[in-house]
């Protein structure tokens, strides 16, 4: 049993700490005050490879591991929790389901640009009437020809509004509840997809902690999607 970071992990910590101090901290209070997401900072993280830490190089990542990813989130959050949660939602909430359950084609199409930081990811599970009881969701997806038509709405979508790629959950078989839940990859430009107003979150008013990206996303009507019903094991 060893409680010691490898040299590689120490290097990542040092790199992210320097980056956080030099590039993130100086504007943290100001972004908080203005409730502003700064794409430039995200782009700089991408240049350093921080937007795809745990993903293999073949999918645009740096081929490191989850420990390195956690170190990065920790170091970013020391100076700006908003930046920390943005990267966390991007990587683990949106990136991971695609990495774990996506087809090779989906990974190349969606995970790669996310890992390289060209695209930002978000995750839509919570609904107004289903929070802790995620299995109680009401959003449905009906197969019509070779498309799914998704209807419903999701709330508290971190990175909503700034994201390009959304991993969204809907019932393909409402009778079966959780077992009838499927996961879809949705592009922000799909017809019928719209994003609601930004929720004013506690810190946004109170300029101490701040997060720049808590949004509510509303899916209006038709949302076309990947052909295959990529069922996520209900979770």
């Amino acid at each position: 049993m060893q409680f010691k970071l490898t040299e590689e992990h120490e290097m990542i910590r040092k790199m992210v700490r320097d980056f956080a101090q030099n590039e993130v901290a100086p504007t943290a209070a100001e972004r908080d005050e203005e409730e502003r997401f700064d794409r430039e900072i995200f782009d700089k993280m991408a240049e350093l490879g921080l937007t795809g830490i745990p993903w293999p190089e073949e999918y645009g990542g740096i081929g490191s591991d989850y420990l390195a990813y956690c170190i990065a989130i920790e170091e970013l959050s020391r100076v700006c929790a908003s930046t920390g949660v943005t990267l966390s939602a991007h990587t683990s909430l949106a990136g991971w389901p695609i990495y774990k359950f996506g087809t090779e084609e989906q990974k190349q199409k969606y995970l790669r640009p996310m890992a390289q930081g060209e695209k930002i990811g978000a995750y839509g599970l919570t609904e107004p009437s289903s929070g802790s009881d995620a299995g109680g969701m009401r959003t449905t997806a009906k197969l019509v020809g070779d498309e799914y038509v998704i209807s419903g709405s999701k709330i508290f979508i971190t990175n909503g509004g700034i994201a390009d790629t959304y991993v969204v959950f809907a019932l393909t078989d409402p009778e079966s509840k959780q077992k009838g839940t499927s996961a879809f990859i949705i592009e922000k430009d799909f017809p019928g997809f719209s994003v609601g107003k930004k929720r004013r979150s506690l810190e946004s008013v109170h300029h101490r902690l701040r997060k720049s990206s808590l949004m509510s996303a509303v899916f209006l009507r038709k949302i076309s999607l990947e052909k295959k019903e990529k069922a996520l094991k209900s979770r």
Partner: protein
Amino acid sequence: MEFKFTEEHEMMRKMVSAFAENEITPHIEAMETGVFPKTVLQKMGELGLMGIPISEEYGGAGMDFMSYIIAINEISKVSPTLGVILSVHTSVGTNPIVYFGTEEQKRKYVPKLAAGKNLGAFCLTEQSSGSDAASLKSKAVAVKEGGEYRINGSKVFITNGGEADVFIVFASTDPQKGSKGISAFVVEKGTPGLIIGKDERKMGLHGSSTVQVTFEDMKVPTANLLGKEGEGFKIAMANLDAGRIGIAAQALGIAEGAMKHAVQYAKGREQFGKPIAEQQGIGFKLAEMATSIEASRLLVYRAAYLRSQGLNCGKEAAMAKLFASRTAVEVAIEAVQVFGGYGYTTEYPVERYFRDAKVTEIYEGTSEIQRMVISKNL
């Protein structure tokens, strides 16, 4: 032993509660954006709420301390901001003049304060003396020159400061004597050399005014010396217990307000097929919150009772403030938790209680100071 309010007190509670619901609620949103609630204070003045414990002779309502605490408690359930404005105005903005003023001073200042036509503030804390008020080497110094004092110095965190008409100011008339050299003065708004700084941006209590006040060669007539030279520290400390009970009542109100919203929400919000209030995880949480509130209520009103009877209540006031403020913070945090993601947004009121609660553990003696007071009295 009776755990019952008199009929008069019950009427008071009912009246203030209705006033808070009907007249204060509509102003909460504006206050959150930093608007000072002038029109509400005017109405409170008309109702006699700005001078509850002040005798009728000086324009007050002539009611007892208990009635005043009931009012702070009820108002704070709806608006902790108005709770603190009222508390500071009455217990440290007006009462020092009532207790230590000359007849002339009382006639001149108290009726307008008690009627809510004037607002009071209290200038004690300085940058280098907060909890350690006795160290108040008071960099604010008053030098007697003929028929007036010339005061220089600066005070911080002055509640009501930006809106007040009357300031109770503490400054050293004899810096050699330390706390025994402090004197108190009544200073009117508009006095040349009285400089009001800009409002502090605070975590909560957004509708209240908190400013830095600076004195630059401010000239105050000797007739405005409150008490005798060197009595300032005694005056500052004299009403401390009452002030603490007031803040404890504010904290109790915050906890009760947050609790009310949490219970309503928990009974209406369904997850896993039933209201979350019926899920044990949330039900037990609500039970703990309710119990802490009940304990706070007993401490707060017992301290208020002792004070009303003119009995010693230093330890009890400190205990009430320590416990009620901790309860306010804990209950508000848990209320946000009950609301889940919604509680974290400004669309629901619990985050406001959460932000408003924290300062009750800080002002009018931090929780650490209360523990000092309690432990010295054991």
